[in-house]
């Protein structure tokens, strides 16, 4: 039997924690050949990154322990090698890139230094390392490669930093590249570029690529085969097409069904006057114009989705509407009164009507307050809403509305999962009985299946309570299923505004087209067609 490039056999990894032993992965097996791309698909807590950490010897032992299995690289068991041999494999035979290149590059050394280190660690001389680093920077298409070598990680954009990581990983022409969520932190158009670069480099070098992701779109774009993981177990494997079109396991079916952008589109049905009317809103940071005059109307019970990439000004818009920052021009009439010029007293009353849900519930919920304290705090500040005797009852009711239960009241945020924490944040916003909730990337940090649940919840609240939503997102397909209007922003300007159907069925502006084209479709056939269309228009 010919050896596979990489073969993982019956691997089990445990973590010994204070609250007992966690079986991070249980008895998983997979293989990967040269020139092939295997995706490990799973949500947070599925153990999808654990096997790659085991391959790279990155598991801290203790608390981790490899309780069974072997990992063969060209038929040789990595676990039987001594530490020095393992170290030699890392970087030279197997290289790795990570999700967040800013934190994975050392902030105090230049990227050129870090490139040269990768080469010199494996015995390449200084001058040659310098020349090689420059060649690789040119290859990954970093702008001004000579000067880039002397820059520090914080001086690059997110996409450029990931290019630096890729250049560094490929420095010694490894046989295997492990990419752990390589594009999750990037904008969609940048994601498309980085994935394209990875595929190109794979064709050039013939390396095997192991890509770890939670995103079906990424799988369909780059992978040949996929293994699906849930709670430490491998539940399904096969070619990408087989698995997408004919999923066997219930979990895989659920994942595929949860992919956004497949349902019916809304037609706006709200009537009456606009509750919020924004005209020509502007914001400057020094000489930089972050918002160049944004206008839109919003009626009760309507959802407007604000979509754009980083730097488009979408979060700035949210912050000035909530008066977390002051606008530098324009008006925003809330029921006829300009909220940009409200006095502190009026603003205090307005806070009841306007609430915000933030991206990261881990950061936006005070870790030292119980769920009861977090939610009832609103009534401490606005005591006219509810007499104290009714607080417990109302907190229980709110928790019920967001799909949690009354017994969760005494717990702390860290005892919940990410999706549950975001529900708590929503319950907290609802405590003030607001009429408008601004969601700033409120589901971006959540797993796909959880994302769908939270969006269903928001849509239910909109229908039942007539709450209006401003929903800020970077992902177009995500907002397609439930927004009434879509506003596409780029560099502080609105480039397109219309109902969902107008925007999605009748793409007007090149930027919106580019944004949608760069969004990855979970269906490998659709994605292949999209990719070919994109290549055709590019050439």
């Amino acid at each position, binding site marked *: 039997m010919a050896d596979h490039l990489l073969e993982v056999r019956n691997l089990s990894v445990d973590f010994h924690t204070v609250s007992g032993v966690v079986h991070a992965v249980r008895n998983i097996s997979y293989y990967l050949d040269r020139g092939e791309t295997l995706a490990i698909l799973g949500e947070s807590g599925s153990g999808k990154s654990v096997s790659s950490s085991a391959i*790279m*010897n*990155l598991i801290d032992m203790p608390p981790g322990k490899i309780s069974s299995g072997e990992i063969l690289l060209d038929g040789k068991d990595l676990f039987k090698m001594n530490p020095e041999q393992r*170290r*030699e*494999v*890392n*970087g*030279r035979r197997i*290289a*790795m890139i*990570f999700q*967040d290149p800013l*934190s*994975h*590059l*050392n*902030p*105090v*050394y*230049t990227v050129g230094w870090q490139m040269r*280190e*990768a080469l010199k*660690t*494996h015995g390449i001389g200084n001058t040659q390392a310098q020349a090689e680093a420059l060649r690789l920077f040119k290859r990954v298409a970093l702008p001004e490669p000579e000067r880039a070598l002397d820059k*520090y990680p*914080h001086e690059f954009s997110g996409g450029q930093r990931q290019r630096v*990581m890729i250049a*560094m990983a490929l420095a010694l022409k490894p046989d295997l590249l492990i990419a752990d969520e390589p594009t999750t932190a990037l904008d969609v158009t940048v994601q498309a570029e980085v994935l394209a670069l990875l595929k190109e480099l794979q064709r050039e070098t013939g390396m095997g690529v192991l890509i770890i992701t939670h995103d079906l779109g990424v799988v369909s774009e780059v992978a040949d085969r996929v293994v699906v993981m849930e709670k430490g177990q491998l539940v399904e494997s096969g070619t990408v097409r087989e698995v997408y079109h004919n999923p066997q396991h219930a979990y895989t079916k659920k994942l595929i069904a949860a992919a956004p952008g497949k349902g019916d589109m809304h037609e706006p049905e709200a009537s009456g006057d606009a509750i919020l009317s924004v005209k020509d809103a502007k914001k400057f940071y020094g000489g930089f114009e972050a918002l160049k005059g944004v206008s839109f109307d919003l009626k009760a019970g309507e959802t407007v989705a604000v979509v754009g990439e980083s730097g488009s000004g979408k979060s700035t818009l949210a912050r000035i509407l909530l008066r977390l920052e002051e606008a530098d021009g324009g008006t925003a009439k809330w029921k006829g009164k300009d909220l940009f010029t409200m006095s502190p007293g009026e603003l205090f009353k307005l806070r009841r009507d306007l609430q915000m849900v933030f991206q990261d519930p881990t950061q936006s919920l005070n870790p030292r307050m119980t769920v009861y304290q977090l939610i009832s705090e609103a009534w401490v500040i606005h005591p006219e809403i509810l007499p104290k005797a009714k607080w417990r009852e109302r907190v229980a009711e709110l928790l019920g509305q967001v799909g949690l239960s009354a017994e969760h009241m005494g717990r702390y945020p860290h005892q919940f999962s990410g999706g549950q924490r975001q529900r708590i944040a929503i319950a907290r916003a609802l405590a003030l009985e607001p009429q408008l909730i601004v969601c700033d990337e409120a589901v971006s940090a959540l797993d796909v299946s959880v994302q769908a649940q939270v969006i269903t919840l928001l849509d239910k609240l909109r229908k039942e309570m007539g709450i209006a939503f401003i929903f800020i997102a970077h992902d177009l397909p995500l907002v397609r299923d439930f927004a009434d209007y879509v506003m596409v922003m780029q560099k502080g300007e609105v480039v397109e505004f219309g109902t969902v159907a107008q925007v999605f069925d009748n793409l007007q502006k090149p930027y919106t087209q580019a944004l949608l084209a760069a969004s990855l479709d979970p269906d490998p056939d659709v994605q292949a067609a999209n990719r070919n269309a994109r290549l055709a228009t590019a050439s």
Partner: protein
Amino acid sequence: MLRFIRKRALASLISLIGLLIMVFFLSRLTGDPASLFLPVEASAEMKAEFRALHGLDQPLLVQFGTYVGNVMTGDLGESLRKARPALDVVLEAFTWTLWLAVITMTLVTVCAIVVGSLAAFRTGGFFDRFSSMVSLIGASVPDFWLAIVAIVVFAIQLSWLPTSGTGTLAHWILPICVLFVRPFGIIVQVVRGSMISALSSAYVKTARAKGVKSGPIIFVHALRNAMLPVITVIGDQAASLLNGAVVIETIFGFPGVGKLMIDSILQRDFNVVLAAILVTAFAIFLMNLVIDLAYALLDPRIRY
């Protein structure tokens, strides 16, 4: 950069003036130098003459005005005791203290960084637990007690080292060793904590994935990132040594600025007290400036 230094210098000048005012008037509350300097049987006329000679008969505000005027021209007055310019007396003592502080802090820094880093590398291991215990004891043991015990053991019982004074290299050993203990204990703890978070950071994971050896991972990748909080504490500890390790210098009869200050206060030698405070304050200002610049040197994201 230059603008930053100018700003810092100006801010320090203001606190220096505040300090000067406070010390000037407070020290005059301690009493009349004439009654300490002249023999007990000295007549009232002799005392009055002494005061007039040193300008001590003037109203306090006039004395202060004269003093500030003199300081501006670089004249810090005469020492009453030694009949030499106060600045010379202070600088001579300060040189001793500076050497003591520089040697001690260099040893402390090197040892604490190595010990703290290695402890952090294998958290919970034998070396970690051992060094944690040692550093905890070091940080909490009273230095005057340690100094006396060290004299009893090494100087009196074993007779290996001199009890006090200066003259040979051997005289330096006990004061340095005793002064070493406390800052070492504190800085090891800071290095360890800071290194633990640096070693668990994402960029260290990248370095391990590149195949970098453990040595460079600890001392090149993690250490430079972990140094920022450490140099703050190093600066803090060094400042207390520059101020003159008053008790230790007194116990070991070491002619440093701490001992000089205590002696001058007891003798109401006001000019020397003021000069000593000005000189040490200036030295601490310079050291803080160096620390701020070290921040920028260590971390390219910090720019002034």
